[in-house]
C-alpha cells in the first residue's frame, strides 16, 4: 500500500480513537459515578436543586450531538484531502 495512504489511515485512526475514547469515557462515567459515588451524584446542584446526576445525564444528549458533529466535520476533511485516487489504492 502506498505510504501516503498509510499515513492517511493512521491519521484517521488516531483521531477516531481519541474521539471514541473521550465520548465513551464521558458516557461510562455516568453509570460508574452512580455506582461508586452515589452520594456525590445525589447532592443538589445549582440547577433548581436537582441532583448532579440529572445534569450529567441530560448533558449526554448535547455531548452526543457535539461528538457526531465533530466526527462528520473530520471525516469530510479527510475525504477532501485523500492523497491519491481511491481506485488506485484498491
Amino acid at each position: 500500500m502506498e505510504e501516503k495512504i498509510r499515513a492517511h489511515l493512521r491519521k484517521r485512526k488516531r483521531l477516531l480513537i481519541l474521539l471514541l475514547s473521550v465520548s465513551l469515557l464521558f458516557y461510562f462515567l455516568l453509570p460508574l459515578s452512580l455506582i461508586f459515588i452515589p452520594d456525590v451524584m445525589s447532592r443538589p446542584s445549582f440547577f433548581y436543586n436537582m441532583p448532579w446526576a440529572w445534569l450529567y445525564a441530560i448533558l449526554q444528549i448535547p455531548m452526543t450531538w457535539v461528538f457526531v458533529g465533530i466526527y462528520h466535520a473530520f471525516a469530510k476533511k479527510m475525504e477532501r484531502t485523500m492523497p491519491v485516487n481511491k481506485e488506485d489504492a484498491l
Partner: protein
Amino acid sequence: MNPTYFLFLIYIIVCTLIITYWAAKRTKTTPRFYVAAGKLTGFQNGMAIAGDFISAASFLGIIGMVALRGYDGFLYSIGFLVSYIVVLFLIAEPIHRLGQYSLGDVICARFPGQHMRLLMALGTFIISILYMIPQLVASGFLLRLLLNLDYSLSVLIVGVLMTIYVVTGGMIATSWVQIVKTVLLMSGTFLLTLIVFSHFDWKIASLIDKVKDGSPFGMEFFRPGHLFQNPIEFFSLQLSLVLGTAGLPHILIRLYTVRNTFQVRRSLISSTWIIGSFYFMTLLLGLGTVALLGYDNLFSLDPTGNIAAPLLAHAVGGDFLLAFVAAIAFTTIIAVVAGLVISATTAFSHDIVHHILKKGKSTEKEQLHAARLSALAIGMISTLFALSLEKINVTFLVSITFIVAASSIFPVLLLTFYWKRFTAVGAITGMATGLLSSLIFVIFGPHVMNPQDGWILREPLFSLYNPGIITIPLGFLGAIVGSLLSGKKRQSIREFERFFVRAHIGMDTRREVEWRR
C-alpha cells in the same frame, strides 16, 4: 369505539396504504426492493432510522418509566442515544462501502463463503424475529387498551399492514412509512410537551415543585436508584444499550439506502438530533405525568406505566389528544415492525435463497419474486405466532434483542473491519459464542426461570436480568480465540490491506452509477 379514535386510525391506515401504492409502482427491481436503490437523502434516511428505532416501548414505556422510576427510567434513553456514536464512528461507513443489501454481504466481502453468509443470515433473522414478536404482541394489547379492539383483531391489523407494506412496496414503502411516523411522533410529542409545560407557566421550577407534590417521595423522587439497585445489573444494561444498536440488522441495513458515506453520516447525525430531542421531550412528559396526574393515581391505574402518555394526553387535551396519541402509538408500531420484516426478508431471500440455495444465479425477476414471497411468509408466520402468544409474557424479548445483537453481530463486524488477524473461523466462533451464550443466559436467567411467573417455574441458574456484561466479552473472546487457533488460515497482509482500504476509504459512490435504473 369512540368515533374520533376510529377516524384517526382509518386516516393513518389510508395514508400509509397510499404511500405503499405509490412505492409499489416504483419497486420493480431488487435494488429498489431491498434498499430503495440508495436514493434517499441523508435527512430522509435519518428520519427513517429514527422511525425504525423508536419503538412503542420507547414512546410509551420511557414516559411511564420516568413517571414511576424518575431518574433511573431516563437512563434507558441515554444508552439508546449514545449508541449512535458507536454506530457512526466504527460501523456505519464500512458497512455502506462493503455491503450491497445485507450484513452477510459485508462479512463476505472479507471472508467469502456460504457458511459465513448462512451464519450472518441466521443471526439477522433471529434478532429481527426476536424483536418483531414482542412488538406484535404489544400492538395487540396496546390497541385493545387504547382503541378497545379485540387482541386478535389488533394483531391481525398490524400484521396484515406490515406485510402489505413490505411485499408490495419493499424498502421504499417501509422508509416512507417510517418517515411519516417520525413526523407524526415528533410533532405529537412536541405538541403534548408544549401543552403540558404551559400548565406550569413555562417554568421549570414550577414543574419540579409540582412533581415533588405529586410524588409520595417528595424531593427523594429525583434521587437516582429507584430502579437499579444491583450495580452489576445496571452497568451490564448500560453496556448492552450502548453497543446493541451497532448490531441491530434492521438499523444497519438502512445505511444502504443512501448514495454515499457523506449521506450515511448525515443520516446518523439527523437521527441523533431527532432521537435526542425526542428523549428530552419524553423526560418532560414523564415528569409532567407525575405533576399533573399524581404518582399514586398513575400507579393504581397501571403499575407498568405504559399508559402514562395516553392518560396525560387525556388529562390535558381530552378525547381528541388521546386519539392523536393512540394514532401515534399505532403508527410507531407499524413502522417498526415493517422495518423488521424487511430486515428478516433480506436475510432470507437475498442471503439464503439467492446466494446459498440458487448459488447467486437467480435472475432479477426471480430475486424480486423470492423477496416478495419471503416477506409474505415472514409477515404471516410472525402474525400467527403473535396471535398465539396472547397469554405469554414476551416483553423481555425487546431488552434481550440488544444483548444478542451486542454479543454476536457487533463483535464480528468490529473485528472484521479493524483486526488483521481475524479469520473466517474466528467470525463463525464469535458469532456462535455470542448468539448461544446470550440465549443460554436468558433462558436460564430470571426472565424465563422464575418461581412466580416465569415460563419455567424454578429458581434461575443465572441471576442477571441483563447478562450483557458476560455475553458481550464472551462474543469477543469466541472470535479472538477462534482466530488465534486458526492462524494459518489468516489473510495475507496484502489481502488485508486491500480490504482495509476498501472498507475505510473505498469507493462509495458506486450506487450512483449502478443503480440509477
